């Protein structure tokens, strides 16, 4: 068992390199000046313009209105990511709680309807969603950005399966102990679902953070720009002899990478437990 297989390690090392080198290149390249990158391409040796590039990206007011800084975009992305994650957890937990613990007609049928929406990607309903938000006057608002995407079949499914695995006796013991539906949810189910919530939080945060198409449709004002749009914006300045600010695009990309990485690192222990642990 303990014998070292060089070949296994080779594959492992290759895989690691495959995953890590592009990120490393992006970080290193972002420390060079734009001209340098334009002339020499990507580089693997750190340059000397790192600090100023990152400072410029974060604080320089840009865009057509001259109002958007990197920090604003970062904030917008965070609001979107957190709003998505928290909103989806609350909503799908409530839905799963109703589906599992309340006896009403067609509960299974309703669940399958919710479940089939898993098959439909966002793009299928993007126009009707836009239409609705537009007629509600919610374009260019955080509400409009977040609310239409909150319903989550994935989250509902995970929470439903989790609640189903909680022994019925726990509910019965709680009933005899005088806990009503709210108290049972609050005192028993939510503490038990902590790991599940962490897992869904990660998935949904990254999902929200990476949204590109939906924010682009929903917002036209620059103060709602997210990081994803900011990166794109930088590369769209190919006018005349101007060189795109590659360094800034790389810096933004690196910045965009950080929050999801932090979230994953912080939650990964619970994440793995949430997805694999069946023992309660």
């Amino acid at each position, binding site marked *: 068992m303990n014998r070292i297989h060089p070949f296994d390690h080779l594959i492992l090392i290759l895989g690691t390199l495959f995953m890590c080198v592009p990120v490393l290149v992006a970080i290193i390249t972002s420390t060079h000046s734009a001209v340098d990158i334009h002339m020499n391409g990507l580089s693997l040796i750190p340059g000397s313009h790192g600090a100023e590039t990152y400072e410029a990206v974060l604080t320089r007011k840009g865009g057509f209105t001259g109002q958007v800084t990197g920090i604003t975009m970062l904030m917008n992305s965070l609001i979107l990511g957190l709003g998505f994650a928290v909103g989806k957890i609350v909503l799908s937990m409530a839905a799963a709680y109703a589906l599992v613990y309340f006896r009403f007609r067609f509960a299974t049928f309703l669940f399958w309807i919710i479940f089939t929406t898993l098959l439909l990607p966002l793009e299928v309903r993007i126009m009707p969603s836009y239409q609705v938000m537009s007629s509600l006057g919610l374009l260019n608002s955080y509400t409009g950005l977040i609310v239409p995407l909150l319903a989550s079949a994935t989250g509902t499914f995970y929470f439903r399966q989790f609640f189903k695995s909680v022994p019925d006796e726990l509910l*019965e013991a709680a*009933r*005899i*102990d*005088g806990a009503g539906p709210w108290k049972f949810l609050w005192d028993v189910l939510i503490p038990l679902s902590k790991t599940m919530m962490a897992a869904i939080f990660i998935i949904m945060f990254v999902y929200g953070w990476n949204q590109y198409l939906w924010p682009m449709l929903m917002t036209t004002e620059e103060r709602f720009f997210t990081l994803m749009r900011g990166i794109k914006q930088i590369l769209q300045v190919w006018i005349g002899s101007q060189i795109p600010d590659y360094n800034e695009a790389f810096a933004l990309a690196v910045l965009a990478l950080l929050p999801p990485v932090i979230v994953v690192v912080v939650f990964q222990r619970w994440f793995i437990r949430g997805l694999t642990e069946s023992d309660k």
Partner: protein
Amino acid sequence: MASITISNVSKTYPGAKAASVSDINLDIRDGEFIVLVGPSGCGKSTLLRMVAGLEEISGGEVSIGSRVVNQIDPADRDIAMVFQNYALYPHMSVRENMAYGLKNRRTPKPEIEARVAEAARMLELGPYLDRKPRALSGGQRQRVAMGRAVVRQPAAFLFDEPLSNLDAKLRVTMRGEIRRLQKRLGTTSLYVTHDQLEAMTLADRLVVLNGGRIEQVGAPLEIYHNPASTFVASFIGSPAMNLLDARIEGGRISLGSTQLDTSPVYGHSGPVTLGIRAEDLTPAAAGLPFRTDFVEELGAQRLVHGHVDGQPLVLTLDPAMPLHDEMRLSVAAARVHIFDTTSGKRLDLVRQTRQAAHQPA
């Protein structure tokens, strides 16, 4: 403290054709320890859950104390329940588990603490109060579940097969603990089990259930010595009572070609089922011809399996007694139980000739 009255209670699950529990009548006195026993699917758990309020009552009435509780929420029935799989809240410490029900009832904090401390002392849970259930052994978890019931000081304890998840040795210990605790607190208890030994040792009175109906209610020994039907006879006691096909003709019981050496019985003739406990059979010079098949050694006694007249029979023998392949067995007349072959019900036949003269068959 309260009595529990169950009158004409039945339960039919929606969609089911037959009732799971039908027409149960039972009066449980204050402080009594009642054990519901029966094979799986006999409705004993359903009955218990109806008393607890976890299952709706389809017909009849359950009262706890003087109050009909049919429409009352489980929390307000003044009962506490111990579950088979303990049902402890996994994220709460032992202390929180025991205090949860009291907290929900807005019991003052000092009183909660006092009651938890008292229960912990009684159940020897003191050192574990701040542990989570997963850090406890099965027996300790079961004690916490009992502690959770005790702190509530309810009118009645309901036990749903609380010992089934424990290993055999621990089960015996916990059985003793439950009995001691119940004696000490004097709380009315309703206990469900499928283990007849557990039922015999714990109960003030036993309720034997079969197919959703009560077969017999009585003190353990009363049931052991006077089973009301072949079902009870074969269910209570280990080894099970021997049940043999026999005939009564002219007041004599005959088994195959052998006539049983008992005083004449009157009041019935034709085929009957004969019940004889394994320990009531003794080797004798004359009697039933018995052929040994195999022997189970239990240490204090041995179980001899064999057959009489082609019908299987078990008898217990002292290990000091010599074993033979063929033996003659005799049985005391008073220890022979006679059951109706078709209905399985006990037939209490007149055994003495003198009485028989007054009551001709």
